[in-house]
């Protein structure tokens, strides 16, 4: 019973990830070229090839717990080299979004950074590097991280303490709202 339920859940997960990413999991023949060239592989718990394997085998719930999709730098090396043109970065994106929906934030700092970035974007229409640094540092509990780099950046006039706001803020807010209405959204 428990096993059957778990198989069914995993099948649903597999279908969902395929639909969201456009990747056909059975395209991958496990050659490992992706993992060989992945610059972040040394720090991953499962290599990119293994993440696909987990999904192929119906062990998607294990993939959801992995740090790999959160650490993927989206550098596109794997996708460029894959003999089967498997769009791995898109797959990572889909796995990560599903993990996030289930409250499984496997790399908290990566998530805080991205959410802070998107928050600023929604509010101002542009990224604001200074505000982002401060917000990120406070929320990730390391208020002095990169603190040594901020004053020289300010001094060189490279970051401003004030965010730049575009005029058409309503347009940006609408984009976020319409995406949310379609079931996406960032939170």
């Amino acid at each position, binding site marked *: 019973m428990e096993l059957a339920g778990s198989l069914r859940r995993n099948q649903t997960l597999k279908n969902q990830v395929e639909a969201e990413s456009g990747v056909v999991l059975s395209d991958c023949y496990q050659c490992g070229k992706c993992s060989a060239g992945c610059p972040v592989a040394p720090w991953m718990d499962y290599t990119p090839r293994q993440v696909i394997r987990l999904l192929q085998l119906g062990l998607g719930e294990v993939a959801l717990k992995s740090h790999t999709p959160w650490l993927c730098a989206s550098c596109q090396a794997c996708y460029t080299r894959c003999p089967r043109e498997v769009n791995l970065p898109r797959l990572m994106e889909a796995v990560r979004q599903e993990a996030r929906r289930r409250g499984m934030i496997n790399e908290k700092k990566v998530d805080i950074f991205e959410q802070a970035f998107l928050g600023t974007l929604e509010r101002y229409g542009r990224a604001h590097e200074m505000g982002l640094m401060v917000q990120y540092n406070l929320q990730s509990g390391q208020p002095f991280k990169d603190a040594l780099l901020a004053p020289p*950046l300010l001094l060189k006039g*490279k970051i401003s303490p004030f965010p730049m706001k575009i005029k058409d803020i309503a347009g940006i807010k609408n984009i*976020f709202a*319409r995406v949310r209405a379609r079931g996406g*959204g960032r939170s």
Partner: protein
Amino acid sequence: MKYAYYPGCSLEATAKEYNQSAKLVARHLGVELWEIPDWSCCGATAAHNNNHLLSLALPARNLAIAEAEGLDVAVPCAACFNRLRAAEAAVRESESMQATISEIIGRDYRATNKTRAFLDVMVNGVGLEKIKEQVVKPLAGLKLAAYYGCLLVRPPKLTAFDDPEDPMTMDRLIDALGGEAVSWSYKTECCGGSLATARGDIGVRMIYQVLRHARDAGAEGVVTACPLCFLNLDMREAQAAAAHGDQLQLPIFYFTELMGLALGYAPKDLGLTTHFVNPLPLLEAKEILRHPATRRETA
């Protein structure tokens, strides 16, 4: 030659040198840049890691404004370039996506215009011959590693203008400017992007690998076309080297800064005075600054 110009957020802040030098060399070479009025952020990797539609809609808003003017878009930031191209391709390939995106951004957008990397516009649009004719201060004796990183050339289906494994556009530009592009194996290796902020332990190692390989190949400086690559390499060079018990003094350049130098502009007009790793000693040692024909930028 006229393009819509999409600077992107970094070029207004940490990469202001890139903005300054890009505008200067464009004007010098007769490329008119029409900055997209009230442009908004492309969403960068944060958007596409979190929501696919959002990651297409945010760039599309800017592309639609340019399309209404009938202009192709020139983009200096490699990350923005990649996101804009992705939005363009998605809309061009699918009618339903075209409709969805137009509805989300509240503007009609059909992807009839094209996004081009600023590097591509310079090297293949203006052309190396024309650039060469304008060189008054050749970068003679300067050995440089052209660093492309990820998003300028990958995935090739999207980026299209150069080889994803051994791109040469920037190398050829360096040679045209009178410098010497070294051959090295890390030109498209990833610098870690925003991992440097969120997972400094990983980022610093990736940064170090790139810099170390450039130095070991005999380069005296690294040339980039991406604000995030630049920031990672320039700002974190000392930290990355120290973490590996090494010392590095490699100045990092935007290719537009080097173009500006070779075209005769003064370092401060190009933003060469606000780098973390000061490039001026190297340029002085190579006697590149001591040429009589320095142009004065009248701001």
